[in-house]
């Protein structure tokens, strides 16, 4: 490890704070992390702000306002490595559901003074405005994966973050497939692993919070959902959720519009 501790900063855009909270939720490792890096800018945890440049920037949240576009560009300049964390930062998040609606129209109807609300039409991932070095998926991210990514960048290696299906994790942990054994629709076969296949172990279908896996076959999965009795509308809704604007999910939901 270099003599000077690497500076890590955490930035937030439109989000629920859950992903950055994962760092504070890593109770067993938090002090270790704090020992290994200089947490230079992490407003959720500290009023101390060390100015940039930073070695690693973690960005949570989606870009939804013109001001945020400027801010994320500035942040990119400040960070040697920029890591987008969570469904908001990697796919626009749940708030990307607005991307199918006319935002201007409803801000106008609701607000007495719409000029106070500055917002873009779309909620977009960080990567659509600046180059991102690594995208860590999940709504929320898995804290073990976050530590792995930090660890990997600190030790200058590639993060071990599999991009295969949730099914693989489900089987590795010995869970029984809910779709086959209980006829519960499950997005697992099209969703990227990382959560530990939590939903199937709680007897429910995956709802896709880690976004599409590597080359997902969403249309084949949609066909299976149909066989399980889901309506077109249901299928549309199941792909249009926390990673609604991720390419593969967006296309599949649009196909069932």
């Amino acid at each position, binding site marked *: 490890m270099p003599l000077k501790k690497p500076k890590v900063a955490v930035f*937030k*855009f*439109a*989000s*629920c*704070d*859950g*992903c950055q*909270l*994962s760092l*504070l*939720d890593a*109770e*067993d490792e*938090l*002090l270790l992390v*704090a020992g290994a890096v200089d*947490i230079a800018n992490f*407003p*959720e*945890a*500290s*009023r*101390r*702000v060390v100015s940039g440049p930073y070695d690693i920037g973690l960005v949570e949240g989606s870009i*939804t*306002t013109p001001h*945020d576009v400027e801010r994320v560009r500035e942040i990119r300049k400040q960070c040697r490595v920029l890591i987008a964390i969570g469904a908001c930062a990697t796919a626009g*998040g*749940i*708030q990307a*559901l*607005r991307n199918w*609606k006319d*935002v201007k129209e*409803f*801000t106008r*109807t*609701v*607000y*007495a*003074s719409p000029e*106070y*609300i500055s917002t873009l039409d779309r*909620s977009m991932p960080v990567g659509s405005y600046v180059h991102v070095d690594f995208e860590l998926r999940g*709504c*929320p991210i898995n804290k073990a994966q976050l530590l792995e990514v930090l660890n990997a960048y600190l030790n200058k290696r590639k993060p071990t973050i599999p991009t295969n299906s949730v099914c693989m994790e489900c089987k590795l942990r010995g869970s029984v497939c809910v779709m086959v054994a209980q006829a519960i629709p499950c997005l697992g076969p099209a969703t990227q692993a990382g*959560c530990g296949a*939590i*939903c199937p*172990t*709680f*007897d*429910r279908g995956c*709802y896709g*919070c880690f976004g599409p896996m590597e080359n997902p076959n969403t249309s084949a999965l949609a066909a299976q959902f149909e066989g399980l009795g889901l309506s077109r509308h*249901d299928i549309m*809704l199941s792909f249009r*959720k*926390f990673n609604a604007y991720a390419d593969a999910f967006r296309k599949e939901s649009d196909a069932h519009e």
Partner: protein
Amino acid sequence: MLMNNRVIRVDQLARVEGEGSLIVKMSDGKVADVKLKIFEPPRFFEAFLRGRKFTEAPDITARICGICPVAYQTSSVLAMEDAMGLTVDDQIRQLRRLLYCGEWIESHVLHIYLLHAPDFLGYEDALLLAKDKPDLVARALKMKKIGNDLMTAIGGREIHPVNVRVGGFYRSPRKDELEPFIDRLQWGLDQAIDTAKLVSTFEFPDFETEYEFVSLRHPEEYPLMGGRIVTSSGLDISIREYEFHFEERHVPHSNALHGLERGHGRYAVGPLARFNLNFDRLSPLARQVAADVHIGPVVKNPFKSIIVRAIETVYAYEEALRIIRAYEPPASPSHAVPVTAGIGCGASEAPRGMLYHRYRVTDDGLIRDAKIVPPTAQNQPTIEEDVRLFVTKFAGLPREELTWKCEQAVRNYDPCISCATHFVRLEIQ
């Protein structure tokens, strides 16, 4: 700049969840204006809930806040069950309380030690505090982890649990999944008592004001969910009546709506409100701890909310222990939910205060419209007023100290800005 014409600015409030800033303008030595600006961009939850299936409400609304997802899940399932005319059996209800205790433990310990205590001890954050007092922070983390692990055991994970559904749970935990918590909760309970003692020794500004407190109240329990809504001025209403008595207003400087009580104005929700309105519902042990640290039954110094949080943490550990000791898995983890058109309201006590949900559902089970009133929106006018009174009283403090103290006055409420900006309500008839 002249001393009596100054501006106190905290561009980015730290150690709160979300993004906001505080501006205090003074002229002629008087506080002219206080603005808690919430610039966290709005996320339009109520708008895009329309047209979603009622079953999706707990998963979707959880994403309003990563700090208190269980609160959102609980209020939303209660509202949906209200709309569908369903009452869950007691075992499921107890399991919900248990999950909620996990969130209270996690959130309160986080706030007490990692967000708030550094203010009292003069540290910029808990990590710096850990350098001087490693045992203290290590203990806090261990206490907090119990809450998180409890949420993981019942909900699958601590942030946005996956196991909550309208009607109950997807799978109920086995006894052997909960029993290992007994020893840890017992340990946590002792630590919580000790925490209450510790934080009560902090130095508190001499600052008390009058509040209109609002919280839930339950016939037997310290309030976590359901019951009635009561206020310190004597209002006692059903949850369904909430909107007759409370409203939200859009103010230009904030992306969060301001909650107001009709005919009364600002009010406060949260630990102080719960404590002051439900002291008699605390467990004997929690009341004893309060007595030992010389607090209650009524607390009006917002800076002392840290002590109240510690007492609520005592309660949460105790309550979790009680539920686990008595736990028998329900016959079925959930009730079948009859889909009917209707309007339903639900409220629960998020760690930061009362969280109200109301939904209208059509007969095909789709959400027609939704209203969500989070605690931070309700507290916003009160927070501004606290800061105004505080600055007025302590205007003589050195600038840096006054600024820090103002921040602290905001942090007394553990404001959750992400929650507060979930909104934009569409009232389309």
